[in-house]
């Protein structure tokens, strides 16, 4: 059989033979590849950003464990659908058997009113252990994907004020709504006086000077409850819908307000690059076998992270549509490239057939040309893509996608895995269509081929 190097050399020479025309075909494939890869880069970036926001900044963890039916009912019947200290112990024991667990954290969620004395704002509070909260904020993935959400003015957190037992972190929006712009570091360490007449402007102005607020809620036992708090930090949830109500408190502080030792859910944080779905399957099996009565959800469940699930579903649908369009263009380009090339070289094909070459061998020659064209095009596409990504990322464009709090940088993440996957897809689709077309073309009788 012909030497492999000679075959590929033949293919490359034929490609160069009509350099201008093949360059256009190659450019079409290259730009198609670029489009697909950039779309993929946007998806990778968005997925990573929203996943980190869900898992870490909104503390869903990779997996969250609730009491059975607790997710739906914990706000309505908090005492009944929360995890008691015994539940927490039992679950902690079970989770120790899974080495892919990086750490766990218990969260208590409760709602109430945040009061300055003249203004009340509803809150949905999450109580977390200070050290765990700090660990979450300082996680490498948070620094990598959402640095803006832990940068000033969000660079402070509860964990750096361990001595302030009743410190809370509020969003910038709540701060505005309440007329409480200052945090602990910037404000006098004093409590504002009781204001009996809220129409008194001077008295109201004094409220804005300090960082103290009060929390009012219904305890789990039904009692009316209240607690003092100091605003020590501002945070952003990353999502617009939760910016108006989200506050973070120390877990024991919130437990005191709601007069409970329970937590609402246990969040499990997995080590980077661990498959959440694989862990979930194994853990659920073990949990159901050994200890029943709990519900377990991955972070991408729409009940846990509706925004993440909704956005990714939308983007994936749009991307799929776009992918189909681009792949169709690539198929048409390849088929056109082959058809034109074959038409031009009919007599050559007839000659090769006459000296003993089989239709399969001739198809193989054209197939190699298609392979080289696709390979060179994807390499070119990768270079174009990389350049675009570098330029876009360096521009630091800020934009406000729907549902996102504040703005976020428009960035693209191009990974080798992504490039390879897109190249493999383009290659598979392109070469499949090439082979199908070639089977038809090379089956012609030699006499007809020799006629030209």
């Amino acid at each position, binding site marked *: *059989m*012909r*030497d492999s190097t*000679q075959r590929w050399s*033949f293919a490359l*020479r*034929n490609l*160069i*033979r009509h350099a201008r025309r093949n360059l256009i075909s190659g450019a079409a494939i290259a730009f198609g590849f670029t489009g697909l890869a950039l779309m993929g880069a946007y998806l990778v970036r968005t997925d990573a950003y929203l996943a980190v926001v869900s898992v870490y900044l909104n503390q869903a963890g990779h997996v969250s464990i609730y009491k059975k039916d607790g997710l739906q009912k914990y706000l309505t019947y908090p005492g009944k659908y929360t995890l008691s200290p015994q539940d927490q112990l039992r679950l902690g024991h079970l989770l120790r058997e899974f080495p892919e667990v990086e750490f766990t954290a218990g969260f208590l969620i409760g709602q109430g009113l945040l009061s300055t004395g003249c203004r009340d704002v509803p809150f949905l509070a999450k109580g977390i252990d200070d050290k765990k909260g700090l660990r979450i904020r300082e996680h490498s993935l948070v620094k990598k994907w959402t640095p803006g959400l832990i940068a000033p003015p969000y660079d402070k957190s509860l964990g750096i004020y361990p001595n302030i037992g009743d410190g809370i972190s509020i969003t910038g929006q709540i701060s505005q709504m309440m007329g409480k712009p200052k945090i602990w570091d910037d404000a006098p360490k004093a409590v504002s006086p009781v204001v009996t007449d809220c129409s008194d402007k001077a008295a109201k102005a004094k409220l804005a000077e300090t960082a103290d607020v009060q929390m009012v809620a219904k305890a789990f036992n039904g009692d009316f409850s209240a607690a003092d708090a100091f605003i020590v930090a501002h945070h952003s949830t990353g999502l617009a819908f939760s910016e108006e109500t989200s506050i973070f408190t120390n877990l024991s502080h919130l437990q005191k307000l709601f007069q409970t030792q329970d937590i609402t859910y246990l969040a499990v944080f997995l080590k980077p690059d661990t498959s959440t779905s694989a862990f979930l399957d194994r853990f659920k099996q073990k949990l159901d076998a050994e200890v029943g009565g709990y519900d377990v959800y991955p972070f991408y469940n729409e009940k846990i992270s509706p925004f993440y699930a909704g956005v990714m579903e939308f983007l994936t649908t749009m991307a799929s549509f776009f992918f189909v369009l681009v792949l169709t263009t690539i198929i048409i380009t390849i088929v056109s490239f082959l058809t034109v090339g074959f038409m031009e070289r009919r*007599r*050559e094909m*007839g*000659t*090769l*057939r*006459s*000296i*003993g*070459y*089989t*239709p399969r061998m001739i198809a193989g020659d054209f197939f190699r040309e298609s392979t080289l064209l696709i390979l060179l095009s994807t390499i070119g596409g990768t270079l174009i893509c990389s350049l675009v990504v570098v330029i876009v990322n360096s521009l630091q464009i800020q934009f406000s996608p729907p549902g996102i709090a504040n703005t976020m940088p428009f960035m693209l993440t191009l990974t080798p895995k992504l490039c390879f996957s897109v190249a493999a897809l383009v290659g598979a689709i392109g070469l499949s269509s090439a082979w199908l077309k070639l089977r038809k073309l090379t089956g012609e*009788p*030699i*006499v007809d081929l*020799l006629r030209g």
Partner: protein
Amino acid sequence: MSESTKEITEGGLTFPDLPGQFGAGVDSPDDQLSNGVATTLRVALGSMTDKPLVSLSDVRKTYRLGETEVQALRGVNLRVLPGEFTAIVGASGSGKSTLLNIIGCIDIPDSGNVEFEGRSTLGLSEDEKSHLRNRSMGFVFQSFNLVPVLTVSENIELPLLLQKELSPTQRAERVLSAMSDVGLQDYAKQWPDKLSGGQRQRVAIARALVTSPRLVIADEPTANLDSATAHRIVDLLAELNASRNVTFLFSTHDEKLMGRVKRIIRIQDGAFET
């Protein structure tokens, strides 16, 4: 060992039934040599046999051009012996190319039988025909049909690339030998588009001969050449026929080239002339 070689060693020598055997209007090669000399030559040459190399029996072929049917061959019979240097002469559209295509297993007759070295080619699969063409036949075309992205030596080497038993060194030797046969040994690295018409046709001839075929089929090999070059090409073919004992079958409509030809078959409207 090729099938043709087997037949030669196993079969005995037989004399062809010369008168009328080749059909009316065909000059027998034994008209030019005495029987005894012919026999001696055949025995002396050893590889020649009285068995025909090619045999056609009542071959017919019709083409449909739109609504019109054209009978390209109308029941032709033909025997070509090994070593012949035969021209098929006829006007354009007389059926020359169709005849050569059928002999070369490039086309299939509608009816009749075609045999090469005593074996029917009609029952062969496409791969078997490809193999037969590669091993036993060579083709020379009117338009040279060289591959423009390959050098002279690479063009000549093309048929040898299918013969996996040959090493690269053996292939190179054969290519060099073929180039020498046609006088192009200094043009190995040249590109076809840099050559004259005559040189290109020499390359095509070298390509046809490089596999040491039993039969070379040339369809109007001189049609695109000036008369001087055309004569030189025919002379070359004749020399190669004499020196290498390869059977040559070529078609032409140029009567002026008949001087070196041993046998002429005239064809008109799909039938041999009487």
